[in-house]
């Protein structure tokens, strides 16, 4: 996959192989953790939090995943050669990628493993997750670098 900035201030993703499309489709699937509830646990027994904030966060986090999934599916179905992330949807992409990375970290604890490369991981599924996590991190870094994300 080729990634690069556009002259319009966005970011261009050019999937070149089937695996590139698959990893883009995996973003939403990897973002499976119930983040809204896990954040709520940081607020001790705050009823208002559970009633008001958690549903709002669930809606917002769900919209991020849905947006990315829809964009990728539509691009693949219509044989688009590239996907453009522009200023308007950079926050949605960044948020979905972050959810995916938070979920993968919660599942695999890559941060505590002190790995130098994916080859350090024996289990195939975990190695695949590590590589996706690394790709998501790269994409997030490029979004931050080339598109303003608040």
């Amino acid at each position, binding site marked *: 996959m080729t990634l690069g900035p556009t002259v319009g201030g966005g970011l261009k993703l050019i999937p070149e192989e089937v695996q590139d499309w698959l990893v883009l489709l995996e973003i939403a699937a990897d973002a499976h953790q119930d983040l809204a509830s896990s*954040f709520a646990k*940081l607020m001790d027994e705050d009823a208002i*939090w559970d009633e008001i904030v958690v549903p709002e*966060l669930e809606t917002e986090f769900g919209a991020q995943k849905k947006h990315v999934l829809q964009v990728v599916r539509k691009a693949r179905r219509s044989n688009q050669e590239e996907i453009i992330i522009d200023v308007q949807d950079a926050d949605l992409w*960044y948020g979905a990628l972050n959810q995916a990375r938070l979920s993968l970290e919660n599942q695999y604890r890559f941060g*505590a493993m002190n790995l130098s490369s994916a080859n350090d991981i024996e289990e195939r599924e975990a190695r695949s997750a590590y590589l996706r996590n690394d790709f998501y*991190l790269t994409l997030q*870094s490029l979004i931050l670098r080339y598109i303003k994300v608040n």
Partner: protein
Amino acid sequence: MKAVDAPVHQSETSTTSQTTQPWSVVIQDDPVNLMEYVSRVIMRVFGYSREKANELMMLVHQKGKAIVWRGNREEGEMYVSQLHRAQLQARLEKSR
């Protein structure tokens, strides 16, 4: 916290306003959120300067957590909800 590629880790530091304020907003380190992103979120949510936001972000990164704001409970809850919306590990603590 990742330094546009490195993660955040633990301890407590107080940097803002006076200790007489009853509630503190604390951001905790995590191994996922990018350092640049955390700085930008702190700037946007609290209206701090880039310099102050970077300083607080570095405290989170190096000490594991940092108090980023002190004040009343209602306002603190609003800030924490905005930090959660940005997917940062934040909580409200009663100031000691």
